[in-house]
């Protein structure tokens, strides 16, 4: 291909893309300093959701767990995509 690569695909821009993402993540956590979370399940005794950054780490960790779980199940369940064609 003769045309120049889109800036999105140029190697030198990769760190910039990561910086933008990390910047956005910091912005998302900032309001934690200003708002007080109310209990989502009033009267249940479950108060973890009112602690600092619960939704941030919960989102990250559960997603990591799901990816790893998928990867693990993939070991047993994956087959070549021509498996059923024979």
């Amino acid at each position, binding site marked *: 291909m003769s045309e120049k690569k889109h800036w999105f695909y140029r190697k030198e821009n990769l760190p910039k893309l990561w910086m933008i993402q990390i910047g956005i993540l910091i912005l998302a956590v900032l*309001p934690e300093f200003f708002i007080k979370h109310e209990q989502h399940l009033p009267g*249940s005794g*479950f108060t973890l959701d009112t602690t600092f950054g619960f939704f941030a780490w919960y989102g*990250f960790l559960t*997603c990591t767990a799901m990816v790893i779980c998928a990867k693990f*199940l993939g070991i047993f369940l994956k*087959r070549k*995509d021509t498996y059923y064609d024979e």
Partner: protein
Amino acid sequence: MNEVVSSSFAFPPGLILVLGAFLIPFLKGILRPILLIGLPILALTLVWTLPEGNSVSLPFLDYALSPVHSNPEGRLFATIFLIMAMVGGLYAWKQANTLELTAAFIYAGSAVGVTFAGDLITLFIFWEIMALGSTAVVWAAGTEAAYRASMRYLLVHFLGGVILMAGITAHVMATGDITFTSMKPDSIGKVLILIGFLINAGAPPFSAWIADTYPEASPSGTVFLSAFTTKTAVFALLVGFPGAEILIPIGLYMVFYGIIYALLENDMRRILAYSIVNQVGFMVVAIGIGTSLSLNGASAHAFAHIIYKALLLMSAGSVLMMTGKRKCTDLGGLFQSMPQTALYGIIGALAISAVPFTSGFVTKSLETSAAAYEGMVIVWLMLMAASAGVFLHAGIKFPWFVFFQKDSGLRPPEPPVNMRAAMAIFSFLCIFIGIFPNLLYEILPYPLDYEPYTAGHLVTQFQVLLFAGFAFFALLPLMKRTLTVTLDFDWFYRRFLSVIGTEFSIHTGNFVKKTTDSLLKRLQLLFEKLHMQNGPHGILGNTSPSSSMVLWVAVILVTSLLLYYF
């Protein structure tokens, strides 16, 4: 039976599409899109003018059918089904073949028919027309793979239909009542009805048919398929089994099944098909919770889901049509030459992920809040994790691998204008419902007082989603696409039973050959014996020469002469 309300024009709204569909093959040129848009509008008008309750009572055997039964749930689902038929018709108009368009309208019409069914027999009839219509939509793709997939699809749906019919028969025999109304799964009949509904919803173990069949249809066919069958099942569960607790674990299983399988998948439309199971799982959980908030949540989520899932599949269908490729490993970088399709796909992806100011945010949060208000800590935590997982498997994965990822070097043009218009309409609706949720809230089955836009809710939702996105990019090496399929329950009927079947036919074949061989041998022996005795040279069958007859007559004559003399 409910009271019959008199009405000036009481006609099942679904039948307008089912019967009108047969006009499609005869109309060409500009008349066809007029019909494709006109029929749903006509039916919509009827949906919203029919009085509440039963408008018609048809005698059938010993029962009175009520094919025109209007209630808030039915109206809501009929409305979104008809909007879907209209915009789907616009998307499919020029590219889909006549068979597909006709089948799709029969399919959509029968789904609407279910939403206006006041009794179980009417429901069953439309339920089965739906199975046939959707099979024809898959067929219309015209490929060998589509034909085979449609046969497997029909197999599962006929099984579901038989179970449903058995349940209805048992229920009617036990109670004598055919009314379709809220039930508890406390008798054999009702349990079978529940199973029949769940099979169409993609519940375990029969979840695989969705990802197996839908992606084999044409680009527009998959869009139609994504909307009706599973959501009709949601409607049936919503009206038939609200608050049935068994639905909560079933729904949670579906939610995570969809995520895990979508994460492992390489085919872009199959990713979205798995995500249907995931989304329907949320609705099934909400129906199981059974409060007015959760039932509103399931209804609203189904409404929003049909729009954004169709939008996602329209965007994937456009990519498939313009590139001829469907695997993530072959795609990437398409945002450069298909920016509009990419934008519409991203809007659909944001909506399914429940990003604030989209339709997913204002509808799915009703369901999670309902679990929270009931104090169901585990269910709530799992639904929150699943919400993050939706962003992971559909919200980022689909647009990332199709439109960004590596540069595949493909530079396809944008799809034709009618397809882009359909995507634009649904993109608009995703955002419009997100910003003005009250318009949707007002037509929900129960009165609703809910404010999705609080500071706390916005902050927490953004945090969950953005950190889920971070997990995606941080774990990107683990997400590397491979040329694989993932085994599922369909392995049992695609492989196991087929191997068993082959073995069975080999063995029975051998047995039959052996027995017929020995039988033939015996018969042959018998015939040989008979031949030996009765054949031309046999002792009993040979012909005697006439000279010997003369000799014997002479002997008899001589003997009688001799006897006469003495």
